[in-house]
């Protein structure tokens, strides 16, 4: 008998009495009066920044005011029309070649008010390493009509909204990379991005 069979048999022999699976109905969970404000506040508390913009021009303007963006030599944008990308992803063969990207601009699908997280998948980002290796990251979350549509209250809603389809990788990103492993002192910029800026773009089509 192979290990798989041995383990399954042992599990079956030891199964506890059957217990029903609880429903996780919405309605029990917290709702925020102003989701956008809650998202912004929490994001700031976890070391990120949030910026609300109403047009592509405004977005690009704001981007140019970020010192990290101005100082960046290698910029990789996966959001058409945002930033001056000089790392053409078509030419990249190996994710290791992205090691020295200073600034990446990536599309986020929606934000979560309770924890300041943004859902990202590699459907739009060819190399998932772009979420982790750049020195700085900006996410662009676009709202179709109202900004509040781009933010859900909590994680339960988040999982109803997101889809696990073809993309093999999905990520909630909440703030920059950080650690408190040395005497509980919070240090922003552990091995990954040193800063995270989320642009909430309210732009009716």
């Amino acid at each position, binding site marked *: 008998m192979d290990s798989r069979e041995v383990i399954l048999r042992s599990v079956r022999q030891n199964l506890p009495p059957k217990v029903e699976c609880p429903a996780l109905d919405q309605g029990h969970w917290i709702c925020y009066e102003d989701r956008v404000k809650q998202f912004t506040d929490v994001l700031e508390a976890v070391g990120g920044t949030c910026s609300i913009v109403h047009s592509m021009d405004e977005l690009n303007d704001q981007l140019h005011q970020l010192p990290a963006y101005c100082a960046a030599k290698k910029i990789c944008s996966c959001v058409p029309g945002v930033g001056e990308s000089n790392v053409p992803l078509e030419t990249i063969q190996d994710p290791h070649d992205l090691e020295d990207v200073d600034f990446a601009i990536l599309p986020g699908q929606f934000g979560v008010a309770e924890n300041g997280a943004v859902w990202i998948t590699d459907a739009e980002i060819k190399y998932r390493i772009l979420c982790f290796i750049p020195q700085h990251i900006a996410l662009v979350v676009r709202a179709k009509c109202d900004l509040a549509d781009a933010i859900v209250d909590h994680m339960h809603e988040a999982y109803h909204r997101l889809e696990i389809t073809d993309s093999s990788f999905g990520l909630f990103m909440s703030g920059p990379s950080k650690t408190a492993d040395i*005497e509980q002192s919070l240090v922003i910029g552990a091995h990954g991005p040193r800063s995270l800026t989320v642009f909430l773009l309210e732009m009716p089509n």
Partner: protein
Amino acid sequence: MSHIARHPELAAQFVSDGARTEWHDQALWFVRKKRDQMAHALPEWELLREKASQIKHHTMSHLDQYLLQFETKAIERGAQIHWARNAEEHNTIVLGILQEHHVTRLVKSKSMLTEECHLNPFLERHGIEVVDTDLGERIVQLKGEPPSHIVLPAIHLKKEEVGVVFHQHLGTDQGASDPNYLTEAARKHLREKFMAAQAGLSGVNFAVAETGGVVVCTNEGNADLGTSLPPLHIACMGIEKLVPRLEDLGLFLRLLARSATGQPITSYTSHFHGPRPGGELHIVLVDNGRSDLLGDPSHRRSLHCIRCGACINTCPVYRRSGGYSYHATIPGPIGSTLGPSRNMQDYYDLPYACSLCGSCTDICPVQINLDEQLLGWRHRIVAHRLLPWRKRLLMKLLSWTFRNTWMYVLAGKVARWTVPWMPRFLIYNPLNAWGKGREIPRMPKHSFREMYRKRIRK
């Protein structure tokens, strides 16, 4: 038989430095308070715990089905599944995958399972360089120590000590101890390791039966740097890590980081559904005693653990005795119940490293009845006559005294008369373990019975 240092002995070493004990205690209490703030900010906190517990009960009672469902779905998504009965098989499987891919440099993110299996020394013996990439784990790895906490591996070290380790291994300035400076040095060092690695190994926080995906949470992004650069990703998980549905993640993720470090969520919560294009994802499902534990009605709930570490942070014994005093991979309340279920003889002392205050049970996000489990272990340990003879004899004597009124009354009288006159060495000697660091209370003139009788007469 070689001498196994037991919790009281190891704890005595730890508390011999009073200032340090105080510092350790405060550091963990700080984390506990952050957790409280987060928990109190959510009106539905208790409901979340309740539901999480129910989901775990449900999952465990259908574990065979969910394992099979997970396997099918994960394979559909292109992952390769391996099953390991025990630690040796787990290690052999991992080594096999690495050798097949000619890997000599591996980066690893946090995984208590691989600690449990002693994977690192095994791989190193086979010529593979293993680099732990969680900063805390890297610190203790360089120091040649195991983690002292499951979430905060280097919580027992002061920044000056980290400075010394980094000076020796990473060439930081002598005497430098600024956390920012040290973290920056680690960043440079580890990014080189990430770039050079030929494979990445991660633990698994949750595995979803419905979709065949695994979820990994980190704050540093180290699991992702480690698994997104090289084409080979190995994820190792205990069979108890399953949740049935994708939506269950919402519940557990709300609880995990809040309970662990008082954060609303970790910086990165990555969902891996299959390998990345052109890469390979191997998932190793490990039993190593878990299915046996499932059959133990009084302790199976310890399989519900999501390894948040909250019970450890809140435990008054852990805070004042440190992770190493538990001589087990997982310390604190949860480790003290998991230890004896692995090997009662080796870990019989751990359920006694507990004041039965119940704080762990109150705080546990999945409502594990930790204090009851520890008490349950004590019953079994006594039944198996595993306690040292001194303690056994004392317990016998006490229980006999408590059962016989006349003896109890007499013992009280004798103590009240004699103790105040006894020289200290007679009271505080090696036979009286209780008197270590404690003073026996001042003997009253009369017993409660006597006082009560007097009052009634009045």
